[in-house]
């Protein structure tokens, strides 16, 4: 091909401060790690020009402010004229990018914005890189409860969720899956609470009064931290306790809740614990090493989100190697062509027709402590990936 | 030199004003220990402004102010007052504090630890204040506030008391009582500098200064003032 550019411009945002900083920064750090690693190798192979070209990451700080994010997204497209357009993480900060991408006919590499409203048949300009869409995410929990639960003695389930898009959608999905299964499972407590909630003592007291066999808590990391700490502070032992971030941001939770507080907690098993076989990019162990080397000060936690950012990088790399031009619809075609074929440390990359991620699913697992008090994961459901049996009820 | 050392308060060539507007032009005034000086002047002549610059509430742009022999021209108000001068402003009270607390603050601002006995004495002067001593000062009527203001300024047992229109708004009865109180305090050696319009105060004054348009127009004894036909006409009103 003719005039190859001297660099491929990838535009993205991050939030160094504010409400969403703690989810945005690890994702962005993962993406940056990928970019720097590639540039150290002289760039990425771009099929459109049939050569290796360095990457230029154009990244602005939106400070968790969505109005700022909108202008900055626009800046990336209209002024910086980036070749590839990557959203900030989390649904709230991704939301403005969705419209803008569509308006400017730019294909949006959506890192972790799982909002159901982003994906529609009439919008071809988006695909979700690493998180499963919220509507299918809790399937393994529901299946475990309805299929294995009754035999274990799980009959009464409590659902507590934070009323935001991310966890609210999961709660709706979970409820639906349980009802559809027609299993002898009763939902004895089902409450949404504000996402800003940071103390659960009174709520826990109410849940306890409902005498559930399993408590499913769906909330963000700070919710999980406060929730699990309160459970510990009150000395309550629910027979089964599920929390999302015990698995997704294990390090963070371990720091804040302590290993003891996580023992026997059910959670999603993150890619870092599954050691998925990869056919592209670093595997989890190598990535961890690279991460620790680049971010030794521990200001940004290694976890699910850091894997997500790196995964975005890998998808982009593979896309560039696949696309015959940098035309946005061609990029889309290339991304979708990877579906089901690309296997990264985050699992199998697979998209539904609207761009939702359906491949990188997270099994249900349970946290156990080894003899040294270190955390390890036992995958429980689905059975084909299971590495052990659940400990139920919690001793 | 001897007379200078004898002055308790001495202002020389004071210029002061607000923002771009100069109000005072080279004002000279002195108060000797135990003396009562009356500052007269028309509405807007600059009496209040001058008192404020004496006690340090506004900056003195030129000139010097000495208090008990110390140059205090650049001193902040709280430090000046610690030298033994208190000020009764036109506002005079802390509206959100009770009467009793107002008196306490008056005393404590200058470091008097136990104002208790003094407070009783002041209540003796103004019984209505004792009656309302737990009420917020904001509930007081205009004249009651004046009483409180006077009492508050006295609570600190100053050597020199600077008062801005103590009689404005007081009933005739109270004006008389205030005059009595002041002459009693004079007897105890308190020096007074009073900006007033009420010529009743001439009775207790030793000397008079008259401000006009921000300049001293006259200074002298009460007798000298009453002898001056033009001044009488201007400041005593003609009937």
């Amino acid at each position, binding site marked *: 091909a003719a005039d190859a550019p001297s660099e491929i411009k990838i535009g993205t945002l991050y939030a160094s401060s504010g409400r969403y900083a703690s989810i945005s920064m690890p994702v962005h750090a993962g993406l940056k790690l990928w970019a720097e690693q590639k540039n150290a190798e002289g760039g990425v192979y771009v099929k459109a020009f049939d050569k290796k070209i360095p990457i230029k990451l154009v990244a602005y700080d939106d400070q968790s402010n969505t109005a700022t994010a909108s202008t900055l997204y626009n800046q990336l497209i209209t002024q910086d004229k980036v070749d590839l357009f990557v959203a900030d993480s989390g649904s709230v900060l991704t939301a403005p990018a969705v419209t803008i991408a569509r308006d400017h006919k730019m294909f949006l590499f959506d890192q972790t914005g799982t909002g159901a409203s982003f994906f529609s048949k009439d919008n071809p300009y988006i695909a979700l890189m690493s998180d499963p869409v919220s509507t299918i995410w809790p399937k393994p929990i529901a299946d475990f409860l309805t299929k294995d639960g009754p035999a274990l003695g799980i009959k009464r389930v409590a659902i507590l969720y934070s009323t935001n898009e991310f966890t609210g959608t999961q709660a709706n999905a979970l409820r639906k899956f349980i009802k559809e299964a027609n299993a002898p499972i009763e939902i004895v407590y089902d409450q949404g609470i504000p996402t800003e909630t940071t103390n659960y003592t009174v709520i826990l007291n109410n849940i306890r009064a409902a005498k559930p066999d399993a408590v499913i808590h769906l909330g963000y990391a700070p919710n999980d931290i406060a929730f699990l700490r309160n459970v510990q502070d009150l000395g309550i032992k629910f027979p089964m306790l599920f929390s999302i971030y015990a698995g997704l941001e294990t390090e963070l939770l371990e720091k804040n809740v302590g290993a003891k507080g996580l023992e026997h907690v059910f959670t999603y098993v993150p890619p870092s614990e599954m050691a998925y076989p990869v056919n592209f990019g670093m595997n989890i162990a190598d990535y961890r090493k690279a991460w620790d080397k680049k971010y030794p000060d521990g200001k940004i936690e290694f976890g699910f989100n850091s894997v997500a950012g790196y995964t975005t990088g890998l998808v982009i790399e593979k896309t560039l190697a696949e696309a015959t031009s940098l035309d946005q619809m061609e990029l889309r075609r290339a991304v979708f062509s990877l579906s089901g074929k690309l296997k990264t440390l985050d699992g199998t990359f697979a998209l539904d027709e609207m761009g939702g991620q359906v491949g990188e699913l997270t099994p249900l697992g349970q946290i156990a402590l080894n003899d040294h008090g270190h955390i390890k994961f036992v995958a429980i459901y689905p059975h084909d990936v299971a590495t052990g049996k659940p400990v139920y009820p919690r001793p | 030199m001897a007379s200078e050392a004898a002055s308790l308060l001495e202002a020389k060539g004071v210029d002061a004003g607000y923002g771009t507007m100069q109000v005072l032009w080279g004002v000279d005034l002195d108060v000797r220990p135990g003396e009562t000086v009356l500052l007269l002047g028309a509405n807007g002549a600059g009496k209040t402004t001058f008192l404020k610059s004496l006690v340090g509430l506004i900056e003195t742009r030129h000139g010097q102010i000495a208090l008990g022999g110390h140059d205090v021209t650049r001193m902040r108000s709280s430090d000046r007052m610690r030298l033994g001068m208190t000020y009764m402003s036109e506002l005079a009270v802390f509206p959100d504090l009770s009467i009793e607390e107002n008196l306490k603050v008056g005393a404590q601002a200058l470091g008097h630890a136990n104002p208790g006995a003094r407070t009783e004495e002041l209540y003796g002067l103004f019984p209505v204040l004792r009656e309302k001593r737990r009420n917020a000062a904001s509930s007081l009527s205009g004249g009651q506030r004046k009483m409180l203001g006077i009492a508050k300024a006295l609570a600190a047992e100053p050597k020199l008391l600077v008062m801005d229109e103590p009689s404005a708004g007081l*009933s005739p009865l109270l004006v008389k009582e205030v005059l009595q109180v002041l002459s009693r305090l004079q007897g105890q050696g308190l020096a007074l500098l009073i900006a007033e319009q009420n010529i009743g105060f001439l009775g207790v004054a030793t000397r008079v200064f008259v401000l006009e348009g921000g300049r001293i127009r006259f200074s002298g004894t009460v007798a000298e003032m009453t002898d001056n036909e033009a001044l009488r006409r201007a400041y005593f009103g003609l009937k």
Partner: protein
Amino acid sequence: MSPEPAPILAVNGLVKRFGGFHALDGVSFHVSAGEILGLVGPNGSGKTTTINVISGLYAPDGGTLTYDGASIGGLASHKLVHRGINRTFQIPKPFLSLTVRQNVEVALAYGRAEIAPPRLSDLLEQYHLADLADRPAADLNSSQQKMLDLVRALATRPRLLLLDELAAGLNPTELDWIAGHVRALAQSGLAIIVVEHLMGFIEQITDRVIVMNAGKDIFEGPLAVAVKVPQVIEVFLGGDHGV
């Protein structure tokens, strides 16, 4: 004696309480157009409170207020202003950051509509505020602010004017000057209630005074008579006094 004109304002048994404290405890008096009524009494006897109630700042807790034949107790201040009642404040309350001119302009624009407004420049001139017209009211000292209060009140074209210690802080010459103005206003047909502690001033301008004590009216009549009433002397004047 000519028959008394019908009063423009009649106050009957007015009561105002603050918590358990009776600031007004049954005050009655009346005032007619063209008349200057003095309202005097010891500090805290309820003079300002009377004015506050008449001008609608506080609703009365008892008694009646009849203005122009209609009851006005509890009406909002601005409505009373539109009917022709206005006042000055003992502690003046101008619009501090507006200029003197703007202070008066507001009153000119929102005052009583029936009457053609007086000329702003005349008003300022008369009360010695013309030089200060374009300065913020915060730059005025308290007596100038009181004059501004008065000018603002006049700008609303009142028929009943309540003056709360307008003259406190003026020297005798200035008192004469303001007395002349107040008399002229009364001659032009205004009813005026004057609260003041300066007996000379009161003597000079009023025909009749009401002496208040502890929320009640204890005397009505000429000041010359009042000064001989023992109770008035005891609570208000003290000993002998020269008018």
